[in-house]
């Protein structure tokens, strides 16, 4: 009897996890790719995020908050992963860059891409969360696990560095 209950609970847990895996992976990949700018790195980061999520799957009490919880894990995983790399791989990255015709407010897309890759991964994560995903700075801080003041600092430095790169 107890064995059957344990088996049922395990099956239910696996079912919930697998359904979330299928549904949330595409969005997590989009976030990871926007932060890391490298498809291979993004896939690895999302895979590691799911493994972390599985380990603490039962700690989340509100299933409605699962999406935000998974995004937080993924963003932090991206930051940790990128910090391990010694150099930014600018040239060999497989990220597609629009090289012809596409001009964003005076700058070519390739210039935007190179400028973004010169930022630290935390600065890039703040820009993606704030400007691409529309999170407030307080929400960005929650995703990154730091204080809002730190996020403001990252944002300010990121914009200044972007401007220097694009104008230089």
């Amino acid at each position: 009897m107890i064995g059957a209950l344990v088996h049922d609970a395990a099956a239910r847990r696996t079912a919930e996890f697998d359904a979330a895996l299928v549904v949330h992976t595409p969005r997590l990949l989009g976030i990871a790719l926007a932060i890391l700018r490298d498809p291979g790195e993004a896939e690895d980061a999302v895979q590691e995020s799911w493994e972390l999520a599985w380990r603490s799957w039962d700690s989340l009490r509100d299933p409605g908050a699962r999406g935000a919880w998974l995004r937080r894990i993924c963003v932090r995983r991206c930051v940790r992963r990128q910090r391990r790399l010694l150099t930014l791989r600018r040239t060999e990255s497989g990220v597609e860059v629009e090289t012809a015709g596409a001009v964003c407010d005076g700058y070519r897309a390739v210039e935007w891409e190179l400028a973004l890759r010169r930022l630290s991964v935390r600065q890039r994560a703040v820009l993606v969360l704030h400007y691409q995903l529309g999170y407030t700075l307080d929400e960005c801080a929650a995703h990154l696990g730091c204080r809002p003041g730190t996020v403001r600092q990252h944002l300010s430095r990121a914009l200044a560095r972007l401007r220097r790169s694009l104008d230089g």
Partner: protein
Amino acid sequence: MADLDRLEEGLRGHLRRSAPVPDGAAGRVVAAVRARLDDAPRRRTPLPALAGVASGVVLAAVLAAALWSRTGTPSGTERPQPPAGGRPGVAVSGAAPTAFSVLDVAFGDDLHGWEVGSTCTDGSCVLAVRATADGGRTWTAPSPVDPRPTGADATARVAFRGARSGFVAAAGLLYTSGDGGRTWSRASLPDGVVAVAPVGASVWALQACPGSPPCSVRVLASTDDGRHWAAMAAGPAVAGADATMVRVSAVDAFVAGSGSAGRGGSRLAATHDGGHSWEQLPDPCGPSPAGAAPVIAALEPTELWVACDGPADRAVYRSRDGGRHWEQRVSAAPGAGALGAAGSPAALALAPRGPVYLGLEPGPLLRSSDGATWTVSLEATTAGGVRLVEFVDTAHGWVVTGDGRALGTADGGRTWIPLAP
């Protein structure tokens, strides 16, 4: 400040346009995570509460066992069997909506098949495909087809050539798989794909033309499982975004649409030379009051069936010469007998050497041995009616209901059993 606004605007624009998720990436990650969890007990990785349950395959088996035990079928049987206490023509209703909402099924034989559907959790849905090797009693965990979110009520078609080469047409796009449906990538085709049909060594895709006045659908062909496509020089003079295609051999095919792009006004066309030439067939139905395409079914180049709603009645026609001449098998006014049931013809299927089935949406599934006399095979209380029906032999068939469930029969449509959710 204006400089900052300009910088922020440019940044938003670049982030929006850049770094698209590569095709197949989501499927690769899902497969890798599942494999990692499958391996975990063997590698003694401390994943708590895994308890030897590794993937959705096991979950599906648990659910299927519970489901089949409720319907009275021994869980150890090899093939779908009718429930012991089942009544002929019993309607299946009242089951809770499942997380996997089925949109289409494709079976190669009575055991091996695939479902395409939308799988949802936390209010988000993606298009996914799952496979079965036991007639639908158990399913593999769903594999995502497209990383973009989809609606739970999307439409999609799935077809397979052999066990590995799969095709999904959804929202005007075509996706292909070369590994049995585990990973998917988008085919390099323009938008507008409404049907896909693999037969033999070739795959044909039907591409709708959105122009006004109606312009003909295009037929594209691939001989390398969807990696490269070429448009056929000739095409059927049929129009409509709901056009359908039935291929009965490598060279014989029928196309039906809701409009005509030819002089004869026919909404039916056929080819018998591999698509090099198409002939318009006489349209036995006439204009549809709802503007719907006639539903067609064929198993041989010569025998073609059509069902349609006319201004005053519903009719079923059969042709024994590939659609050049038609014989009306039956017509029924609304409310008259089983054929006059509410709903519109949505699916027509011929069982090899067996009866013909007509699905109404919303409405019942009807069954006839000769096309003249119809009885109810699956009652209309199934929510949303019958969206699709398919038979691989006289006994084994499947339907997809309008509310996203699939049911199977192992006795020629006398009893229907819900497949594992």
